[in-house]
């Protein structure tokens, strides 16, 4: 239960919550922290902050203070690879990446959590690459005191699927690259794919373990795929031959190599002709030519997820459609842009 006392009668009482001060453009934060014992000298400053009354809390057995609530919520929301400090400020607790990796947000659990009255959690988008210590979410109980059962139910909801936020480490893949196309293979044009794709792979902490060039011949491409697998590659990238021309035989070659699952086409522009296949457990990504002209394509949305251990199938490629349209800005601000964030 909350009781209200007049400010001038509050000397000697302990503050029930932080008192926030906002100086526009200068400062926003707690001027007084919860638990501070009000003394005579505080009264003037509190009056300046617009306080004429203060809350005194008398908790019932089934009630809980916002700070304790926030800690329960944070503990439930934080999955593997997420850390938080039990030092609520103004009833709020921040959640941080406990390691480098890919943030995954269980959006249905988050929605279910936020549909519980009087609690909230806000996160970065799912599938965002994050660094250790980066702020990835925050939670708070909205009222100063609330019923413990509500917090416990919200926490139970948050705990489904082992927490709402998880940071999955990216595995260090041994990537094998196959550049297809007669024009490159026969030296008519210079390949530009290998440097672009190597750089993307290395920037995610993986290594380029093998590189091969193949003409538009299914059998040769198949042999290159199998050779890469024999060399111990656990991720394959194939460029070129992904479109609908009769010379584009890459898909056929992937099939011949024994792919158990082939998904051609993603709901992303640029990158509609992207392909995901699996040879046993080894993912194979077919990268269309747009990756040469656009800094960010389907590959950039899918590769971190593959490295984080996610199995990308037809549904995942389809769900990329919402937010999957690149605005083609003159200066690319990705990842600080909405591209690929709707899935």
């Amino acid at each position, binding site marked *: 239960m909350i009781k209200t006392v007049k400010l001038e009668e509050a000397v000697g009482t302990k503050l029930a919550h932080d008192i926030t001060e906002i100086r526009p453009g200068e400062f926003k934060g707690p001027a007084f922290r919860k638990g501070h014992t009000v003394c005579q000298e505080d009264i003037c400053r509190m009056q300046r902050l617009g306080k004429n009354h203060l809350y005194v809390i008398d908790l019932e057995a089934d009630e809980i203070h916002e700070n304790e609530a926030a800690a329960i919520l944070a503990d439930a929301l934080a999955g593997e690879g997420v850390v938080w400090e039990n030092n609520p400020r103004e009833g709020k607790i921040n959640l941080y990446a406990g390691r480098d990796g890919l943030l995954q947000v269980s959006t249905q659990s988050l929605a279910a959590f936020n*549909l519980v009255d009087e609690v909230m959690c806000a996160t970065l988008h799912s599938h965002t690459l994050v660094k250790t210590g980066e702020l990835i979410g925050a939670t708070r109980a909205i009222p100063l005191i609330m019923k413990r059962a509500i917090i416990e139910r919200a926490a*139970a909801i948050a705990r489904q699927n082992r927490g709402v936020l998880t940071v999955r480490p990216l595995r260090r893949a041994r990537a094998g690259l196959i550049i297809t196309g007669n024009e490159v293979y026969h030296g008519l044009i210079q390949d530009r794919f290998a440097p672009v794709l190597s750089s993307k792979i290395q920037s995610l902490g993986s290594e380029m373990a093998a590189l091969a060039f193949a003409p538009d011949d299914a059998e040769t491409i198949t042999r290159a795929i199998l050779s890469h697998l024999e060399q111990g590659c656990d991720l394959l990238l194939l460029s070129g031959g992904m479109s609908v021309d009769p010379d584009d035989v890459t898909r056929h070659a992937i099939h011949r190599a024994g792919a158990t699952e082939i998904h051609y086409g993603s709901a992303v522009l640029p990158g509609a002709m992207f392909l995901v296949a699996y040879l046993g457990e080894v993912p194979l990504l077919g990268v269309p030519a747009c990756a040469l002209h656009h800094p960010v394509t389907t590959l950039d949305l899918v590769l971190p997820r593959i490295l984080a251990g996610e199995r990308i199938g037809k549904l995942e490629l389809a769900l990329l459609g919402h937010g999957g349209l690149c605005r083609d800005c003159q200066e690319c601000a990705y990842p600080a842009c909405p591209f690929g964030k709707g899935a």
Partner: protein
Amino acid sequence: MNRDGAAPFEELLAGSVAAHGHLCPGQIVGVRMAMLGLRLLDFEAPPTYPQLKQLIVFIEMDRCTGDAVAFVTNAKLGRRSLKFMDYGIMAATFLNLESGKAFRVISTEESRDLAQMYVPQETDKRQAQLESYRIMPDSVMFRVQRVKVDLTPFDLPGPTRRKATCRKCGQVVRDGREVIRDGQTYCRPCARGAYFTEAQEIAWEEMNWSPFLTIPGKDFAARQGEPAT
């Protein structure tokens, strides 16, 4: 123990669907609501006979969910273990008569809103509910209140506790449902009005039919067309 789990759930759902007549989202909600209510009382689903004797279920809606709750709990109106409270609320309360413990399980509106998020590949809302209500955790599907339920002996299973006769219409009223007004006893329809109006007693054709004829030497067909006496 017949605790939560796919196999007992599917078994109970199949039985409930057969009894109710069709599979619908409400059936799944009802089966799960009952399983949760029984689990909170530490009862099995369905309850054992001794547990059934201790169980009273209050259903707050007359919808598919209500039938599923009744099926899973084996609670019956005629055994006075099932009470219908006409609140129009998707909730049911499970009371253990022996311990007095009672839990009111309320189906959340959020679970309806979230159904399609749980199965994003499903575009049909009803189908999404059918699938998602199988996988949503109880914490999302339901809110639970611990409640106190005051029952009088007149509400309990067992023999009729009291009979009273309406002063106005002569109807016998059982189990304390009579109304005392100005020291006189009435049935509820006479005292407060009823769900029906303009009641008029009638005679009907074949008034003497019974499943087993009781008049020796006369069968029902032979009496057809006899003048009324």
